[in-house]
Protein backbone atom coordinates (compact mmCIF):
# COMPACT_ATOMS: atom_id res chain seq x y z
CA UNK A 1 0.00 0.00 0.00
CA UNK A 2 1.43 3.30 -0.96
CA UNK A 3 1.90 5.97 1.62
CA UNK A 4 0.11 8.22 -0.87
CA UNK A 5 -3.20 6.49 -0.18
CA UNK A 6 -4.94 8.82 2.17
CA UNK A 7 -8.35 9.51 3.59
CA UNK A 8 -9.48 13.11 3.80
CA UNK A 9 -12.06 14.47 6.18
CA UNK A 10 -13.40 17.97 5.75
CA UNK A 11 -15.58 19.83 8.23
CA UNK A 12 -17.27 21.86 5.51
CA UNK A 13 -18.55 18.71 3.83
CA UNK A 14 -22.17 18.10 4.91
CA UNK A 15 -21.56 14.34 4.66
CA UNK A 16 -21.07 12.81 8.11
CA UNK A 17 -17.41 12.03 8.85
CA UNK A 18 -17.99 8.27 9.10
CA UNK A 19 -19.55 8.32 5.64
CA UNK A 20 -16.64 10.33 4.24
CA UNK A 21 -14.23 7.72 5.57
CA UNK A 22 -16.38 4.80 4.44
CA UNK A 23 -16.93 6.13 0.94
CA UNK A 24 -13.26 6.88 0.33
CA UNK A 25 -12.04 3.50 1.53
CA UNK A 26 -14.78 1.75 -0.43
CA UNK A 27 -13.73 3.70 -3.52
CA UNK A 28 -10.08 2.71 -3.09
CA UNK A 29 -11.04 -0.94 -2.68
CA UNK A 30 -13.36 -1.08 -5.68
CA UNK A 31 -10.79 0.77 -7.79
CA UNK A 32 -8.22 -1.89 -6.87
CA UNK A 33 -5.87 0.57 -5.18
CA UNK A 34 -6.30 -1.29 -1.91
CA UNK A 35 -5.59 -4.90 -2.88
CA UNK A 36 -7.19 -7.93 -1.35
CA UNK A 37 -5.52 -8.74 1.97
CA UNK A 38 -4.19 -5.21 2.49
CA UNK A 39 -4.40 -4.25 6.11
CA UNK A 40 -6.25 -1.10 7.03
CA UNK A 41 -4.78 1.01 9.82
CA UNK A 42 -6.01 0.29 13.33
CA UNK A 43 -9.09 2.22 14.38
CA UNK A 44 -7.16 4.22 16.95
CA UNK A 45 -4.44 5.23 14.53
CA UNK A 46 -6.83 6.41 11.82
CA UNK A 47 -9.08 8.13 14.35
CA UNK A 48 -6.10 9.90 15.96
CA UNK A 49 -4.70 11.06 12.61
CA UNK A 50 -8.07 12.39 11.46
CA UNK A 51 -9.02 13.92 14.79
CA UNK A 52 -12.16 11.78 14.97
CA UNK A 53 -13.62 9.62 17.70
CA UNK A 54 -12.66 5.97 17.55
CA UNK A 55 -16.36 5.09 17.30
CA UNK A 56 -16.72 7.20 14.16
CA UNK A 57 -14.02 5.30 12.32
CA UNK A 58 -15.35 2.08 13.85
CA UNK A 59 -18.73 2.74 12.30
CA UNK A 60 -17.14 3.27 8.89
CA UNK A 61 -15.25 -0.02 9.23
CA UNK A 62 -18.41 -1.86 10.34
CA UNK A 63 -20.32 -0.61 7.34
CA UNK A 64 -17.51 -1.68 5.02
CA UNK A 65 -17.59 -5.08 6.66
CA UNK A 66 -21.35 -5.37 6.34
CA UNK A 67 -21.10 -5.10 2.56
CA UNK A 68 -18.21 -7.55 2.41
CA UNK A 69 -15.46 -5.13 1.43
CA UNK A 70 -13.33 -5.74 4.52
CA UNK A 71 -12.94 -8.50 7.07
CA UNK A 72 -12.20 -7.83 10.73
CA UNK A 73 -10.61 -10.45 12.88
CA UNK A 74 -9.94 -10.22 16.58
CA UNK A 75 -6.22 -9.64 16.97
CA UNK A 76 -5.69 -9.67 13.21
CA UNK A 77 -6.88 -6.18 12.40
CA UNK A 78 -9.05 -5.23 9.47
CA UNK A 79 -8.08 -6.37 5.99
CA UNK A 80 -9.52 -5.89 2.54
CA UNK A 81 -11.67 -8.89 1.74
CA UNK A 82 -11.01 -11.18 -1.19
CA UNK A 83 -13.18 -10.29 -4.19
CA UNK A 84 -16.44 -12.17 -4.15
CA UNK A 85 -16.84 -14.98 -6.69
CA UNK A 86 -19.23 -14.18 -9.57
CA UNK A 87 -22.74 -14.73 -8.29
CA UNK A 88 -24.21 -18.01 -9.41
CA UNK A 89 -27.60 -17.72 -11.07
CA UNK A 90 -30.26 -18.05 -8.43
CA UNK A 91 -32.31 -21.19 -8.34
CA UNK A 92 -35.50 -19.23 -8.92
CA UNK A 93 -33.99 -17.48 -11.93
CA UNK A 94 -32.82 -20.74 -13.47
CA UNK A 95 -36.22 -22.36 -13.01
CA UNK A 96 -37.92 -19.31 -14.45
CA UNK A 97 -35.76 -19.44 -17.54
CA UNK A 98 -36.53 -23.13 -18.00
CA UNK A 99 -40.24 -22.45 -17.68
CA UNK A 100 -40.04 -19.59 -20.17
CA UNK A 101 -38.20 -21.74 -22.68
CA UNK A 102 -40.84 -24.46 -22.31
CA UNK A 103 -43.61 -21.89 -22.70
CA UNK A 104 -42.07 -20.49 -25.86
CA UNK A 105 -41.57 -23.97 -27.31
CA UNK A 106 -45.17 -25.01 -26.53
CA UNK A 107 -46.56 -21.74 -27.87
CA UNK A 108 -44.67 -22.10 -31.11
CA UNK A 109 -45.91 -25.64 -31.32
CA UNK A 110 -49.43 -24.19 -31.22
CA UNK A 111 -48.51 -21.83 -34.09
CA UNK A 112 -48.34 -18.64 -32.01
CA UNK A 113 -45.89 -15.97 -33.04
CA UNK A 114 -43.64 -14.02 -30.65
CA UNK A 115 -46.03 -11.09 -30.23
CA UNK A 116 -48.81 -13.43 -29.23
CA UNK A 117 -46.56 -15.14 -26.70
CA UNK A 118 -45.54 -11.84 -25.14
CA UNK A 119 -49.14 -10.66 -25.11
CA UNK A 120 -50.22 -13.89 -23.42
CA UNK A 121 -47.52 -13.46 -20.78
CA UNK A 122 -48.58 -9.86 -20.19
CA UNK A 123 -52.18 -10.91 -19.81
CA UNK A 124 -51.18 -13.65 -17.40
CA UNK A 125 -49.18 -11.16 -15.35
CA UNK A 126 -52.24 -8.95 -14.89
CA UNK A 127 -54.31 -11.76 -13.43
CA UNK A 128 -54.15 -12.91 -9.88
CA UNK A 129 -53.64 -16.62 -9.38
CA UNK A 130 -56.92 -18.46 -9.89
CA UNK A 131 -58.61 -15.46 -11.51
CA UNK A 132 -60.78 -16.32 -14.52
CA UNK A 133 -59.56 -15.01 -17.85
CA UNK A 134 -62.47 -12.78 -18.98
CA UNK A 135 -61.57 -13.16 -22.65
CA UNK A 136 -61.49 -16.94 -22.46
CA UNK A 137 -63.58 -18.09 -19.48
CA UNK A 138 -63.96 -21.57 -20.90
CA UNK A 139 -60.25 -21.84 -21.40
CA UNK A 140 -59.72 -20.83 -17.81
CA UNK A 141 -62.26 -23.40 -16.70
CA UNK A 142 -60.56 -25.93 -18.87
CA UNK A 143 -57.24 -24.93 -17.47
CA UNK A 144 -58.45 -25.57 -13.96
CA UNK A 145 -59.62 -29.04 -14.88
CA UNK A 146 -56.78 -29.87 -17.26
CA UNK A 147 -53.38 -28.30 -16.65
CA UNK A 148 -51.60 -26.80 -19.65
CA UNK A 149 -48.30 -28.13 -20.91
CA UNK A 150 -46.41 -25.36 -19.13
CA UNK A 151 -48.28 -25.99 -15.90
CA UNK A 152 -47.68 -29.66 -16.19
CA UNK A 153 -43.95 -29.08 -16.22
CA UNK A 154 -43.83 -27.71 -12.66
CA UNK A 155 -47.39 -26.81 -11.83
CA UNK A 156 -46.53 -23.10 -11.95
CA UNK A 157 -47.99 -20.18 -13.83
CA UNK A 158 -46.02 -17.09 -14.70
CA UNK A 159 -48.72 -15.03 -13.05
CA UNK A 160 -47.65 -16.42 -9.75
CA UNK A 161 -43.96 -15.68 -10.18
CA UNK A 162 -42.74 -13.99 -7.04
CA UNK A 163 -42.32 -10.29 -7.55
CA UNK A 164 -44.06 -10.28 -10.89
CA UNK A 165 -46.74 -8.05 -9.39
CA UNK A 166 -50.32 -7.45 -10.43
CA UNK A 167 -49.72 -4.53 -12.76
CA UNK A 168 -48.96 -4.62 -16.41
CA UNK A 169 -45.34 -5.35 -17.21
CA UNK A 170 -43.24 -3.77 -19.90
CA UNK A 171 -40.41 -5.16 -21.90
CA UNK A 172 -36.95 -3.68 -22.11
CA UNK A 173 -34.16 -4.92 -24.33
CA UNK A 174 -31.75 -7.37 -22.83
CA UNK A 175 -28.61 -5.77 -21.50
CA UNK A 176 -30.38 -2.72 -20.18
CA UNK A 177 -31.52 -2.50 -16.65
CA UNK A 178 -34.59 -0.43 -17.21
CA UNK A 179 -33.93 1.28 -13.92
CA UNK A 180 -33.99 4.65 -15.58
CA UNK A 181 -37.64 4.04 -16.35
CA UNK A 182 -38.77 2.52 -13.15
CA UNK A 183 -37.51 1.74 -9.72
CA UNK A 184 -40.42 -0.43 -8.70
CA UNK A 185 -40.42 -4.19 -8.94
CA UNK A 186 -37.66 -6.62 -9.81
CA UNK A 187 -36.62 -7.82 -13.27
CA UNK A 188 -37.76 -11.22 -14.48
CA UNK A 189 -35.97 -12.91 -17.34
CA UNK A 190 -38.25 -14.49 -19.89
CA UNK A 191 -36.50 -15.97 -22.90
CA UNK A 192 -34.63 -13.25 -24.73
CA UNK A 193 -36.48 -10.41 -23.01
CA UNK A 194 -36.43 -8.81 -19.64
CA UNK A 195 -39.96 -8.29 -18.44
CA UNK A 196 -40.37 -5.51 -15.95
CA UNK A 197 -43.39 -5.31 -13.77
CA UNK A 198 -44.97 -1.93 -13.11
Amino acid at each position, binding site marked *: *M*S*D*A*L*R*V*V*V*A*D*DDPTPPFEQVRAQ*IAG*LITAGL*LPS*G*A*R*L*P*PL*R*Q*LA*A*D*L*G*LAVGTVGRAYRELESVGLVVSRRGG*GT*RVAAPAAPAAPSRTGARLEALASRLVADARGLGADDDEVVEAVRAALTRRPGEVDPAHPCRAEEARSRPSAADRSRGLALGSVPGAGARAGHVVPPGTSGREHDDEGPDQVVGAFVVRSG
Partner: protein
Amino acid sequence: MSGLVISLPLGLLLAALVVGLALRASARPPVPAADHPLVRTAARRAGAARAAGTALGVVAAVLLASTGTLGRGPLLAPAALGLGVLAGVLVGEAVVRPRTTGRRSATLTTRRLRDVVPRPTAVLVITTTAFLLTLLAVTTAVASPDDLGRPGRSLTGSCTSTTTFGVGPWPGSYYSGPLAAAVLVGLLAAVLVLRRVAARPAVGGTPELDDADHQLRGRAGAAVTAAVGVLVSASLAGVLVFASMAASSHDCPSGPWQVFTAVLLVALPVSVAVLGWCGAVLLVPGGSARRPRVPA
Protein backbone atom coordinates in the same frame (compact mmCIF):
# COMPACT_ATOMS: atom_id res chain seq x y z
CA MET B 1 43.69 -5.01 39.50
CA SER B 2 40.59 -3.34 40.91
CA GLY B 3 41.90 0.08 39.90
CA LEU B 4 42.37 -1.12 36.36
CA VAL B 5 38.91 -2.68 36.31
CA ILE B 6 37.39 0.71 37.12
CA SER B 7 39.63 3.26 35.42
CA LEU B 8 39.96 1.50 32.08
CA PRO B 9 36.19 1.25 31.52
CA LEU B 10 35.70 4.88 32.49
CA GLY B 11 38.24 5.99 29.90
CA LEU B 12 36.67 3.73 27.32
CA LEU B 13 33.22 5.07 28.16
CA LEU B 14 34.38 8.62 27.64
CA ALA B 15 36.01 7.72 24.32
CA ALA B 16 32.93 5.84 23.08
CA LEU B 17 30.69 8.71 24.06
CA VAL B 18 32.82 11.30 22.27
CA VAL B 19 33.14 9.21 19.12
CA GLY B 20 29.43 8.40 19.19
CA LEU B 21 28.43 12.02 19.61
CA ALA B 22 30.71 13.10 16.77
CA LEU B 23 29.27 10.45 14.45
CA ARG B 24 25.67 11.19 15.41
CA ALA B 25 26.00 14.94 15.12
CA SER B 26 27.60 14.77 11.66
CA ALA B 27 25.10 12.26 10.26
CA ARG B 28 21.95 13.62 11.83
CA PRO B 29 19.49 14.65 9.13
CA PRO B 30 17.58 17.87 9.73
CA VAL B 31 13.85 17.72 10.30
CA PRO B 32 12.02 18.45 7.03
CA ALA B 33 9.70 21.45 7.08
CA ALA B 34 11.26 22.45 10.38
CA ASP B 35 9.97 25.99 9.93
CA HIS B 36 6.36 24.88 9.85
CA PRO B 37 4.71 26.00 13.10
CA LEU B 38 3.22 22.58 13.86
CA VAL B 39 6.51 20.79 13.26
CA ARG B 40 8.48 23.34 15.21
CA THR B 41 6.11 23.14 18.16
CA ALA B 42 6.06 19.33 18.19
CA ALA B 43 9.87 19.10 17.91
CA ARG B 44 10.41 21.67 20.63
CA ARG B 45 7.97 20.04 23.04
CA ALA B 46 9.30 16.54 22.43
CA GLY B 47 12.89 17.71 22.91
CA ALA B 48 12.03 19.60 26.08
CA ALA B 49 10.13 16.64 27.52
CA ARG B 50 13.02 14.28 26.72
CA ALA B 51 15.51 16.63 28.35
CA ALA B 52 13.30 16.99 31.41
CA GLY B 53 12.87 13.22 31.62
CA THR B 54 16.61 12.69 31.32
CA ALA B 55 17.29 15.25 34.05
CA LEU B 56 14.69 13.60 36.26
CA GLY B 57 16.28 10.23 35.60
CA VAL B 58 19.75 11.52 36.49
CA VAL B 59 18.46 12.95 39.77
CA ALA B 60 16.64 9.72 40.59
CA ALA B 61 19.73 7.68 39.72
CA VAL B 62 21.97 9.81 41.97
CA LEU B 63 19.50 9.58 44.83
CA LEU B 64 19.14 5.85 44.40
CA ALA B 65 22.90 5.36 44.18
CA SER B 66 23.34 7.05 47.53
CA THR B 67 20.78 4.81 49.18
CA GLY B 68 20.15 1.10 49.19
CA THR B 69 21.92 -1.54 51.16
CA LEU B 70 25.24 -3.15 50.28
CA GLY B 71 25.52 -1.69 46.82
CA ARG B 72 22.00 -2.43 45.63
CA GLY B 73 21.32 1.29 45.11
CA PRO B 74 24.13 1.92 42.62
CA LEU B 75 23.24 -1.24 40.77
CA LEU B 76 19.67 -0.05 40.25
CA ALA B 77 20.63 3.54 39.41
CA PRO B 78 20.83 2.93 35.61
CA ALA B 79 17.28 1.62 35.69
CA ALA B 80 16.12 4.87 37.31
CA LEU B 81 17.88 6.87 34.61
CA GLY B 82 16.35 4.78 31.82
CA LEU B 83 12.85 4.99 33.25
CA GLY B 84 13.20 8.76 33.58
CA VAL B 85 14.09 9.08 29.91
CA LEU B 86 11.18 6.84 28.94
CA ALA B 87 8.82 9.01 30.96
CA GLY B 88 10.13 12.09 29.16
CA VAL B 89 9.62 10.53 25.72
CA LEU B 90 6.11 9.48 26.69
CA VAL B 91 5.19 12.99 27.75
CA GLY B 92 6.74 14.42 24.57
CA GLU B 93 4.59 12.14 22.43
CA ALA B 94 1.45 12.69 24.48
CA VAL B 95 1.49 16.44 23.87
CA VAL B 96 1.12 15.98 20.10
CA ARG B 97 -2.56 16.69 19.60
CA PRO B 98 -4.54 15.85 16.47
CA ARG B 99 -6.19 18.48 14.31
CA THR B 100 -9.92 18.34 14.84
CA THR B 101 -11.05 21.12 12.55
CA GLY B 102 -10.73 22.00 8.91
CA ARG B 103 -9.57 19.65 6.20
CA ARG B 104 -7.18 16.96 7.39
CA SER B 105 -5.97 13.70 5.96
CA ALA B 106 -4.48 10.44 7.18
CA THR B 107 -2.41 7.78 5.52
CA LEU B 108 -3.87 4.31 5.18
CA THR B 109 -0.59 2.61 6.01
CA THR B 110 -0.32 0.90 9.36
CA ARG B 111 2.42 2.27 11.57
CA ARG B 112 4.07 -0.58 13.40
CA LEU B 113 6.22 -0.53 16.50
CA ARG B 114 9.24 -1.87 14.60
CA ASP B 115 9.00 1.00 12.12
CA VAL B 116 10.04 3.51 14.76
CA VAL B 117 12.93 1.52 16.23
CA PRO B 118 16.45 2.08 14.81
CA ARG B 119 17.44 -1.42 13.80
CA PRO B 120 21.23 -1.47 14.48
CA THR B 121 20.86 0.04 17.94
CA ALA B 122 17.94 -2.27 18.69
CA VAL B 123 20.01 -5.34 17.74
CA LEU B 124 22.82 -4.10 19.96
CA VAL B 125 20.45 -3.55 22.88
CA ILE B 126 18.71 -6.91 22.48
CA THR B 127 22.05 -8.73 22.36
CA THR B 128 23.28 -6.88 25.43
CA THR B 129 20.05 -7.66 27.28
CA ALA B 130 20.32 -11.34 26.45
CA PHE B 131 23.92 -11.40 27.66
CA LEU B 132 23.02 -9.60 30.89
CA LEU B 133 20.13 -11.95 31.70
CA THR B 134 22.27 -14.99 30.90
CA LEU B 135 25.10 -13.71 33.07
CA LEU B 136 22.68 -13.01 35.93
CA ALA B 137 21.35 -16.55 35.64
CA VAL B 138 24.90 -17.94 35.86
CA THR B 139 26.02 -15.73 38.73
CA THR B 140 22.80 -16.52 40.60
CA ALA B 141 23.23 -20.24 40.09
CA VAL B 142 26.78 -20.34 41.49
CA ALA B 143 26.24 -17.87 44.35
CA SER B 144 26.28 -18.74 48.02
CA PRO B 145 25.22 -16.99 51.22
CA ASP B 146 27.77 -14.59 52.68
CA ASP B 147 29.32 -14.90 56.10
CA LEU B 148 26.24 -13.33 57.70
CA GLY B 149 23.91 -15.73 55.96
CA ARG B 150 22.50 -13.33 53.37
CA PRO B 151 21.71 -15.48 50.36
CA GLY B 152 23.35 -14.84 47.00
CA ARG B 153 26.07 -12.45 48.12
CA SER B 154 29.25 -14.41 47.76
CA LEU B 155 30.99 -16.90 45.56
CA THR B 156 32.39 -20.06 47.11
CA GLY B 157 34.17 -22.84 45.30
CA SER B 158 37.01 -25.27 45.46
CA CYS B 159 40.36 -24.97 43.75
CA THR B 160 41.48 -28.49 44.54
CA SER B 161 40.09 -31.31 46.58
CA THR B 162 41.58 -29.77 49.70
CA THR B 163 41.35 -26.00 49.18
CA THR B 164 38.22 -23.87 48.94
CA PHE B 165 37.62 -20.16 48.54
CA GLY B 166 34.86 -17.68 49.36
CA VAL B 167 34.81 -14.18 47.87
CA GLY B 168 32.32 -11.33 47.66
CA PRO B 169 30.38 -9.28 47.06
CA TRP B 170 29.10 -11.42 44.23
CA PRO B 171 26.10 -10.64 41.97
CA GLY B 172 23.98 -13.53 43.16
CA SER B 173 20.28 -13.45 43.90
CA TYR B 174 20.74 -10.67 46.46
CA TYR B 175 21.52 -8.36 43.53
CA SER B 176 20.34 -10.21 40.47
CA GLY B 177 16.71 -10.48 41.58
CA PRO B 178 16.05 -6.73 41.91
CA LEU B 179 18.22 -6.00 38.87
CA ALA B 180 16.43 -8.49 36.64
CA ALA B 181 13.09 -7.09 37.79
CA ALA B 182 14.25 -3.55 37.00
CA VAL B 183 15.43 -4.60 33.53
CA LEU B 184 12.12 -6.32 32.78
CA VAL B 185 10.18 -3.28 33.98
CA GLY B 186 12.33 -1.10 31.74
CA LEU B 187 11.72 -3.35 28.72
CA LEU B 188 8.00 -3.40 29.34
CA ALA B 189 7.89 0.37 29.73
CA ALA B 190 9.90 0.78 26.53
CA VAL B 191 7.43 -1.34 24.57
CA LEU B 192 4.53 0.70 25.88
CA VAL B 193 6.23 3.99 25.01
CA LEU B 194 7.16 2.73 21.53
CA ARG B 195 3.54 1.78 20.95
CA ARG B 196 2.57 5.31 21.86
CA VAL B 197 5.23 6.69 19.53
CA ALA B 198 3.81 4.64 16.65
CA ALA B 199 0.16 5.33 17.44
CA ARG B 200 0.18 9.00 18.32
CA PRO B 201 -1.57 11.39 15.92
CA ALA B 202 0.39 12.54 12.91
CA VAL B 203 1.88 15.99 13.18
CA GLY B 204 -0.10 18.30 10.95
CA GLY B 205 -2.33 15.78 9.23
CA THR B 206 -1.23 16.76 5.74
CA PRO B 207 0.90 14.90 3.18
CA GLU B 208 3.43 17.75 3.11
CA LEU B 209 4.35 17.12 6.74
CA ASP B 210 4.65 13.33 6.45
CA ASP B 211 8.46 13.39 6.26
CA ALA B 212 8.70 15.60 9.32
CA ASP B 213 6.31 13.32 11.18
CA HIS B 214 8.43 10.26 10.30
CA GLN B 215 11.54 12.10 11.44
CA LEU B 216 10.07 13.05 14.81
CA ARG B 217 8.80 9.53 15.40
CA GLY B 218 12.23 8.17 14.49
CA ARG B 219 13.90 10.45 17.01
CA ALA B 220 11.53 9.38 19.75
CA GLY B 221 12.02 5.71 18.88
CA ALA B 222 15.81 6.17 18.93
CA ALA B 223 15.62 7.84 22.34
CA VAL B 224 13.55 4.97 23.73
CA THR B 225 15.92 2.34 22.33
CA ALA B 226 18.93 4.23 23.64
CA ALA B 227 17.35 4.61 27.08
CA VAL B 228 16.91 0.85 27.29
CA GLY B 229 20.46 0.47 26.01
CA VAL B 230 21.81 2.72 28.76
CA LEU B 231 19.76 0.86 31.35
CA VAL B 232 20.96 -2.56 30.23
CA SER B 233 24.59 -1.82 29.35
CA ALA B 234 25.25 0.22 32.50
CA SER B 235 23.72 -2.56 34.60
CA LEU B 236 25.80 -5.11 32.72
CA ALA B 237 28.95 -3.08 33.27
CA GLY B 238 28.19 -2.91 36.99
CA VAL B 239 27.61 -6.65 37.22
CA LEU B 240 30.81 -7.33 35.27
CA VAL B 241 32.86 -5.07 37.57
CA PHE B 242 31.38 -6.80 40.64
CA ALA B 243 31.84 -10.28 39.26
CA SER B 244 35.30 -9.82 37.73
CA MET B 245 36.67 -8.26 40.92
CA ALA B 246 35.31 -11.12 43.02
CA ALA B 247 36.34 -13.84 40.59
CA SER B 248 39.87 -12.50 40.30
CA SER B 249 40.41 -12.11 44.03
CA HIS B 250 40.69 -15.76 44.99
CA ASP B 251 43.93 -17.72 44.98
CA CYS B 252 43.11 -20.59 42.68
CA PRO B 253 46.04 -20.89 40.31
CA SER B 254 44.09 -22.06 37.24
CA GLY B 255 41.00 -23.84 36.15
CA PRO B 256 37.51 -22.86 35.00
CA TRP B 257 37.36 -19.80 37.24
CA GLN B 258 40.25 -18.23 35.38
CA VAL B 259 38.43 -18.76 32.09
CA PHE B 260 35.28 -17.30 33.57
CA THR B 261 37.19 -14.27 34.83
CA ALA B 262 38.77 -13.76 31.42
CA VAL B 263 35.34 -13.78 29.78
CA LEU B 264 34.14 -11.17 32.26
CA LEU B 265 37.15 -8.96 31.64
CA VAL B 266 36.65 -9.12 27.87
CA ALA B 267 32.93 -8.38 28.17
CA LEU B 268 33.46 -5.38 30.41
CA PRO B 269 34.97 -3.00 27.81
CA VAL B 270 32.41 -4.16 25.26
CA SER B 271 29.55 -3.31 27.58
CA VAL B 272 31.13 0.07 28.29
CA ALA B 273 31.46 0.77 24.57
CA VAL B 274 27.77 -0.12 24.11
CA LEU B 275 26.96 2.23 26.99
CA GLY B 276 28.91 5.04 25.32
CA TRP B 277 27.16 4.50 21.99
CA CYS B 278 23.70 4.36 23.57
CA GLY B 279 24.52 7.50 25.54
CA ALA B 280 25.42 9.25 22.30
CA VAL B 281 22.16 8.11 20.65
CA LEU B 282 20.25 9.31 23.69
CA LEU B 283 21.84 12.74 23.53
CA VAL B 284 21.55 13.04 19.73
CA PRO B 285 18.61 10.89 18.62
CA GLY B 286 18.56 11.09 14.83
CA GLY B 287 17.22 8.99 12.03
CA SER B 288 13.72 8.62 10.77
CA ALA B 289 10.95 6.09 11.21
CA ARG B 290 10.78 3.57 8.39
CA ARG B 291 7.89 3.80 6.01
CA PRO B 292 5.82 0.63 6.16
CA ARG B 293 5.93 -1.61 3.12
CA VAL B 294 2.98 -2.90 1.20
CA PRO B 295 1.23 -5.26 3.60
CA ALA B 296 1.13 -8.94 2.71
